[in-house]
């Protein structure tokens, strides 16, 4: 399994999750977990996804999601899970 963490941060608005999920579904990216909070009107979401069946390169996906974020007015980042795992787990 190739796990990637997608984080979405920005001003809350209608349809953020819908837009991101539509993109993921269209690229055969499976969502494993979602957590989300809103702090002082700021939308903060983290998704753990499996990119095993995705046909694109990682960089391409990251760029496309970043552009999608710009359209919605939020910041979307993709990072492989290992960086968090290494840092927070012994």
């Amino acid at each position, binding site marked *: 399994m190739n796990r990637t963490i997608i984080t979405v941060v920005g001003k809350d608005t209608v349809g953020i999750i819908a837009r991101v999920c539509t993109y993921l579904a269209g690229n055969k990216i499976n969502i494993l977990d979602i957590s989300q909070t809103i702090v002082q009107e700021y939308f903060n979401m983290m998704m753990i996804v499996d990119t095993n069946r995705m046909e694109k390169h990682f960089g391409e996906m990251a760029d496309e999601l970043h552009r999608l974020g710009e359209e919605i007015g939020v910041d979307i980042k993709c990072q492989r899970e290992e960086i968090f795992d*290494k840092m927070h787990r012994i």
Partner: protein
Amino acid sequence: MINLFEVVETNEMITKENLDVRTITLGINLLDCIDSDLKKLMEKIYNKIYEAAKDLVKTGEEISREFGIPIVNKRISLTPIALVGGSACKSTEDFVSIARMLDQVARQVGVNFIGGYSALVSKGMTGADELLIRSIPKALSCTERVCSSVNLGSTKTGINMDAVRLMGKIIKETARYTEEQDSLGCAKLVVFCNAPDDNPFMAGAFHGVTEADKIINVGVSGPGVVKNAISKVRGESFEVLCETIKKTAFKVTRVGQLVAQEASERLKVPFGIVDLSLAPTPAIGDSVADILCEIGLEYAGAPGTTAALALLNDQVKKGGVMASSYVGGLSGAFIPVSEDQGMIDAVKAGALTLEKLESMTCVCSVGLDMIAIPGDTKETTISGIIADEMAIGMVNQKTTAVRVIPVVGKGVGETVEFGGLLGHAPIMPVNSFSCDAFVSREGRIPAPIHSFKN
């Protein structure tokens, strides 16, 4: 599974606290390029470096993108050129032509620095060592990316005072050769005692003869992360302070270890070491001096600075050692002046002097680093400063270094601007009492008694 809080913490370290991997340095052995024909030698060196490093920058960028962590520099370190060029180079010009070629290949593969224009002369100088050393001023003035280092002493061999005397002259000459750029050449030249074979940081990186054919060494950073972490335990005991630094260093180093392993796998080059050094940059918040202030000092240089730095250095090592399978290089905290805004402020406020910096080098990695001094400082005075620093390294069995810049045409009170990562610095006063008679003695200082351990 990873939770939102942990993801946010990591990403805040990267976006707000300047967490980055400072460098991926590819070490390349050049001993198999040795040839008595200079042209053939240069061709072999060029080809070997190009083949080994052509994917280095691209791979670094890919890793950076996938993990979302900046990898600031991609660099190359080489077998000391004095060893490689010994049989082909008959003049300083011959060595300079190698430097030019190294600059060219560095540009070709896209690395910003290439280290290893070096000589190891801790006990004595061969003819080739001396030729290379004498070629340094010209080599650094006609190249952009070549870095040079000379190892002048070690705990096992003592200090080669003939080479120390020569380096005082060479540093002054390098300053003159590059006077139009505020003596920038000296920022790419460092002298060492106990130089490590696997240092990934410039200007002192070279690929030691004890190393494999190729190796990946990684230098992590993150002074901003440490500062932010300890700002949350203001007023707490030393125990809490130390635990906090240790835990933070662990997290920072794990990122370095991950990047090193990925780079090693993708480039098919064995992983060497992670260097744990806290390396500052001129960016605001990316400062080791700011950590010292957060520990409780008004400015770096105030009484208590050496103790605070000793504590910091030790905790960084303790946290980092557990996070990486192999630790090496210099590992600790760097205290360059021009590359650290907090240090610059401390000098400007009159809190930090050259003498205090010297005592700080007793307890942290490296030494007198990126210090601008008046252009009219005498050669022998520079040699005296070097000898003092080498003695600290020799007796304390640690690495020490000197990278001072006697800025031609400038004096105390003026500022010098190097730009980029090298930063800017106020010219610091130097003790001007003479050490001429000391420095002009010939020979070497014997190894200290505690080096005889066999």
